[in-house]
């Protein structure tokens, strides 16, 4: 009987696996198309960088010399590029530099910042402030350059990429001596300590003999809410996942927190098939549970629409990742409302959505996690792949044992 029922029981699982494979195939195709379409060509911006020049010549890879007089070939400066890590990935800037090493023109060639925030920084006049600066200047936010409050990462990426472009021209083309660069320090501070501590709490909380799991879970949630939410605003978002999928791996020295968080989650998943983050220290999950305590919220699962809700969310997340890979912009489709709550930053739509979710949290336990969070389908997908791989491994081992030794 059991064997007769098996194919029917396995049909939804098989369908899920086929759809999972299709999702991966379409995402890989989007990644490849995005790579082909990416245009970071400097040539079309040369005139913008050096309006006085009427002739450009390519010197070495990535550099152009600018001449003011075609016949006399009067050299007036160079064009080079510099890159730095922004909020959504690498940012590349083309810089026009005169013969004394002063910045004369700046054009952002590629950037992956959240559109609203990049526009805010661009409109703030930060780029104009950098014009006229010399390659020997420190280019430090808050010292010789004013950044934009709330968009520090984007401001810093612009400033650093201009500095790198100016110094590349000064060193490679002008033969000038570059100031000694401070080696990049490993960024290990309170967020890194907090995330390690939270993983440790989760580990102890999951021990079979431990009696106070519930209390420990609440402690972890409150620490997550305060530290990773309200103080540092560092929850796991779709943007961080897209960034890793696109291969925009930021320097580990300055982004240790993200490596610890994502690496730790994947490690626990692989070893124990448990998600250590969502139920234990996701700051937005904790915020919903705190609201839920006020309204005595309870877990609610609609047996009628459960499948519809799950597939709507899976489709939405697939679409959001697809667009991010196609446009090679991790932050483009990061629709979460975490920053809206923890930093009060977001569009009007995000504030409406936040209000809706918080009201729903009064009655239903964690409505965002159940119906809207992009991490939920990713979690399900990782579990499915893990289970499938283990199944294949067991089958392979079983076949090896059955087959006679040669």
């Amino acid at each position, binding site marked *: 009987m059991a064997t007769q029922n098996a194919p029917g029981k396995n049909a939804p699982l098989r369908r899920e696996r086929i759809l999972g494979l299709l999702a991966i195939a379409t995402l890989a195709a989007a990644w490849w198309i995005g790579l082909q379409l990416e245009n970071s060509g400097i040539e079309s911006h040369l005139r913008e960088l050096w309006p006085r020049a009427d002739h450009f010549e390519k010197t070495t890879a990535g550099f152009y010399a600018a001449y003011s007089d075609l016949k006399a070939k009067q050299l007036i400066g160079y064009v080079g590029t510099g890159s730095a890590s922004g909020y959504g990935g690498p940012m590349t800037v083309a810089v026009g530099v005169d013969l004394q090493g002063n910045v004369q023109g700046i054009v952002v060639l590629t950037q992956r910042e959240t559109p609203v925030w990049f526009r805010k920084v661009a409109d703030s006049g930060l780029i104009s402030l950098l014009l006229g600066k010399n390659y020997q200047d420190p280019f430090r936010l808050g010292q010789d350059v004013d950044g934009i409050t709330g968009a520090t990462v984007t401001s810093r990426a612009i400033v650093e990429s201009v500095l790198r472009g100016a110094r590349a021209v000064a060193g490679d083309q002008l033969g000038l001596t570059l100031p000694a660069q401070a080696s990049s320090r490993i960024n290990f501070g309170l967020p890194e300590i907090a995330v390690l501590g939270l993983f440790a709490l989760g580990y102890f909380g999951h021990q079979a003999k431990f009696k106070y799991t519930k209390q420990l879970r609440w402690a972890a949630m409150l620490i997550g809410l305060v530290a990773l939410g309200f103080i540092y605003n560092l929850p796991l978002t779709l943007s961080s996942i897209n960034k890793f999928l696109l291969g925009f791996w930021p320097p580990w020295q300055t982004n240790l927190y993200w490596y610890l968080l994502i690496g730790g989650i994947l490690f626990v998943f692989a070893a124990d098939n448990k998600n250590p983050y969502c139920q234990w220290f996701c700051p937005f999950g904790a915020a919903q549970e705190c609201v839920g305590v006020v309204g005595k919220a309870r877990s609610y699962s*609609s047996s009628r629409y459960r499948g519809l809700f799950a597939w709507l969310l899976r489709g939405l997340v697939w679409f959001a990742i697809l667009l991010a890979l196609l446009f090679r912009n991790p932050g483009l489709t990061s629709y979460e409302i975490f920053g809206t709550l923890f930093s009060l930053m977001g569009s009007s739509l995000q504030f409406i959505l936040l209000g*809706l979710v918080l009201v729903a949290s009064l009655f239903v336990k964690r409505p965002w996690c159940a119906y809207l969070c992009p991490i939920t389908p990713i979690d399900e997908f990782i579990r499915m792949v893990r289970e499938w791989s283990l199944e294949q491994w067991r089958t392979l081992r079983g076949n090896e044992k059955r087959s006679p030794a040669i």
Partner: protein
Amino acid sequence: MANPPRERKAQPSDLILLLFVLISMALVIIELLSNLLSQLVG
């Protein structure tokens, strides 16, 4: 004893939940599309 029927009629709470999910999804999709438009325009 007969087993209870598997499919049941939608309860009012199911419909409220459905409304919440659909409105939230609509807001998310509008947000995604507006970000996409910003990227395409500028």
